[in-house]
């Protein structure tokens, strides 16, 4: 047992659901107790999704404990098949079904006989993998299923597309700025004259998965989702993949050069150097920013980076290599990928922290006292407590991290966004300090007050206590309303009764 208040990566089934519900017309059925469908709330709220989240639950209740699920799972699958005609139904195990050890594979096989759509059991074990690993695995599983299906039917397309083309693998629902990143990558590919073959899983149709081998190469922008699929496609079809995250000016260039190499090996004869040069010097403002005096002022400032592997690595490199900021500690909660993480960041920071324990990360930040933090929502709150500004660079995130405005982290526009994020975090901190040193905004004492807080009315002790229970941000208003009410009625002793009579009268 582990005492935990907070977790960075969610449970395995969340990963499976993220992949399943990213596809078009794929339905996931969770084998879970009542209340485990919180995923639907998150998707509906955070993504502000207009459509019903295609996830339902085959409920595990007391009866299931006693007698097993029996026909229930099969019935739920066939029912959903009839109601919504999905192309694929993914039966998703949860922590509960992991221990019940029912033969879910058997249910899937039986349901398949009656269903028009395909039925698949997500191969994830709650106790072995987390959200990110499960997502990677489920995507691989679905791709493999449809490639093999096409192969069996003999309708797997032969050969590559005429012009150089790419599959973008790993864009998913509830991913950190995924939609914006996807748009940016599509633009980037268009600029390079590379056709988009397929984008998976977001918005993809499972029947198109058989076309994946037609691409010249696969691009996997995020370390956490898509690598398994890319490796599988390489092994099966020899499709090379590029797994350099194009985040930051240097890494974007490195990614593009790798793409150039991969394409030229297949006889494309492309040269992106001119494009990279033009973009770096004149389109992205990040390179210019690094020369400007604004950035000069940041030289040697201390920062701490924490997040998923992709974003923490990229951010560390950007801060250290492109802005001259001193990254004291870089860390990730992707423990399973620790080796890669270390290898990537060790030359750009003093120490590396691999941990899932938010208290350990909080303590590290308190010890180092950086001028700015780049982390998840958890680090943002640590920063709040310690008065250190924080830029959010990775999940877990809140609704404000799903902006409607265009805010990619990848590609050349991404470099601009990151520049703003970094610069704003640091200047906010600086302004704060300057204010402190020079004694705040107003050094003169305020002599007159527009709205007097003092009052001629007498509050009883009980009423005062009751007033103090009211949250601070509305307390003043309630006090004023109550006193106004009392004055109008010539009451000069304010009791709890008067307080609530006032509330009823004002109607708020």
């Amino acid at each position, binding site marked *: *047992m582990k005492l935990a208040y907070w*977790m960075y990566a969610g449970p395995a089934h969340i990963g499976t659901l993220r992949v399943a519900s990213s596809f078009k017309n794929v339905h996931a059925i969770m084998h879970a107790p*009542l209340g485990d469908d919180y995923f639907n709330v998150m998707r509906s709220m955070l993504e502000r999704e207009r459509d019903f989240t295609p996830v339902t639950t085959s409920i595990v209740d007391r009866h299931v404990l006693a007698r097993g699920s029996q026909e229930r799972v099969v019935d739920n699958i066939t029912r959903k098949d009839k109601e919504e005609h999905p192309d694929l139904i993914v039966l998703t195990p949860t*922590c509960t079904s992991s221990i019940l050890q029912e033969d879910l594979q058997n249910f899937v096989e039986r349901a398949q006989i009656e269903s028009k759509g395909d039925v698949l059991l997500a191969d994830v074990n*709650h106790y072995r993998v987390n959200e990110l690993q499960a997502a990677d695995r489920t995507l691989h599983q679905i791709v493999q299923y449809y490639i093999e299906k096409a192969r069996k039917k003999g309708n797997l397309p032969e050969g590559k597309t005429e012009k150089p083309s790419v599959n973008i693998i790993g864009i998913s629902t509830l991913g950190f700025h995924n939609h914006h990143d996807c748009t940016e990558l599509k633009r980037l590919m268009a600029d390079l004259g590379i056709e988009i073959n397929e984008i998976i899983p977001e918005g993809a149709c499972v029947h198109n998965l058989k076309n994946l081998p037609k691409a010249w190469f696969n691009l996997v922008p995020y370390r956490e989702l898509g690598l398994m699929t890319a490796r599988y496609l390489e092994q099966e079809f020899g499709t090379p993949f590029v797994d350099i995250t194009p985040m930051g000016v240097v890494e974007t260039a490195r990614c593009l050069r790798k793409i150039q190499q991969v394409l030229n090996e297949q006889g494309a004869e492309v040269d992106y150097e001119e494009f990279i040069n033009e973009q770096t010097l004149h389109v992205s403002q990040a390179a210019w920013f690094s020369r400007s005096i604004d950035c000069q002022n940041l030289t040697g400032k201390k920062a701490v980076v924490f997040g998923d592997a992709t974003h923490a690595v990229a951010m560390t490199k950007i801060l250290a290599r492109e802005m001259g900021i001193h990254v004291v500690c870089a860390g990730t909660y992707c423990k399973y990928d620790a080796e890669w993480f270390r290898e990537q960041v060790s030359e750009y920071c003093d120490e590396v922290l691999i941990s899932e324990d938010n208290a350990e990360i909080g303590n590290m930040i308190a010890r180092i006292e950086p001028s700015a933090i780049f982390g998840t929502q958890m680090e943002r709150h640590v920063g709040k407590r310690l008065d250190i500004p924080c830029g959010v660079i990775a999940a877990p995130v809140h609704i404000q991290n799903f902006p409607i405005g265009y805010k990619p982290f990848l590609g050349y526009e991404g470099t601009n966004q990151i520049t703003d994020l970094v610069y704003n975090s640091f200047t906010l901190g600086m302004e704060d300090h300057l204010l402190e040193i020079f004694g705040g905004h107003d050094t003169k004492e305020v002599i007159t007050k527009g709205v007097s807080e003092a009052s001629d009315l007498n509050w009883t002790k009980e009423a005062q206590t009751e007033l103090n229970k009211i949250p601070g941000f509305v307390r003043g208003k309630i006090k004023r309303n109550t006193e106004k009410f009392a004055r109008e009625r010539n009451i000069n002793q304010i009791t709890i009764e008067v307080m609530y009579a006032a509330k009823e009268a004002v109607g708020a």
Partner: protein
Amino acid sequence: MTLAQAESTLNFECETGNYHTFCPISCVAWLYQKIEDSFFLVIGTKTCGYFLQNAMGVMIFAEPRYAMAELEEGDISAQLNDYNELKRLCEQIKRDRNPSVIVWIGTCTTEIIKMDLEGLAPKLEAEIGIPIVTARANGLDYAFTQGEDTVLAAMVARCPDKAPVADVEKNEGNAIQKLLNFGKKKEEIAAEESEFVKHPPLVLFGSVPDPVVTQLTLELKKQGVKVSGWMPSKRYTELPVVEEGYYACGVNPFLSRTASAFMRRRKCKLIGAAFPIGPDGTRAWIEKICSVLGVEPKGLEEREQQIWESLEDYLQLIRGKSVFFMGDNLLEISLARFLIRCGMTCPEIGIPYMDKRYQGAELALLEKTCLEMGVPVPRIVEKPDNYNQVQRIYELKPDLVITGMAHANPLEARGINTKWSVEFTFAQIHGFTNARDILELVTRPLRRNNSLKDLGWDKLVKEAKV
């Protein structure tokens, strides 16, 4: 059954139970705030933790007095010893937080692996010297607010059965009185006592924010009824005294287990009243309490009338409109009854679980309200099926759907007004004073529509996408 009969009696149906609601462990979110010296330990998996972390939102960063005892593979396969593991964690909690009580929340996983929490608790309690209350608030058996019910039912057993007598010799008067009125002079106490009618002690149960406690206590005080204690109290150490023969009355509709714990385990008499939600409910609640305790209620009719008058601007917005409850928090019957009295119609009340005995008076008031308002009685659907409900919503086109967050945005995108049901659980909705707050919530989407009308942005999904 003739048509007339069908219209005058309530219809109960039961569907498949495929509906969205919060897991009952969510009760820790409001209970740890209510019981200030408690610590809630949820013994479950990452799934439970993930839910709480996301459902509690920003509260999670305020160093809440709750934590997960996250079960690992070794716990499931019993390679690790439950008792030792729990002891280690509880000692850590004692060291870091020093609470007056640790509440263990049993989850689906502890049920399935049959971890004997009720058996382990007394042993560990004796060893570490902190009371441990066990509540099985799991998704296998319960929905959302029923979590509070399991916790309160477990706590009923912990209420002292006699007033503390320790300092009785020091004080000339009654020790309880002394405690309750501590610091006050004798004549003040006497004056205060004279405000109450003599009646058997009354304990109220249900966790409501402190201001609501004050408001409801004062409402009863106006009738001369004295509230001897609230379950739960602000602190675990202040749990009310419960003696055999006391009266107990619930303020929330989801507290059936707590009610039976009061009756069966503590031999209390239960006052089965409608719940004090809306001015009609509050008046019925007070009247029932008064009638049981032999007190003549006074001025209630005028008071109710006065509240209704103050609501008139909101009533104008909803009169004649229809409301559909998808059902997820068990407040549905009371809210529907109030809204029907406000002049709305209600084709369907979905509800996770319907205790016809505990909610008896509430159901009777609902029926009476429908009759008096001349509207058909709603169908009450227990364990609803959300998919079927959405089809019925498309057909009925209600003016307002009260639903969970999973369905709210998709329905809004289809031009159907929604109100997020969870807000009713967290807002102050009890008593005369807060009737306006309920309508504030209910009318919000309608007022939003008034400001957005004529923009032609009702339906924002593309039809027939496949």
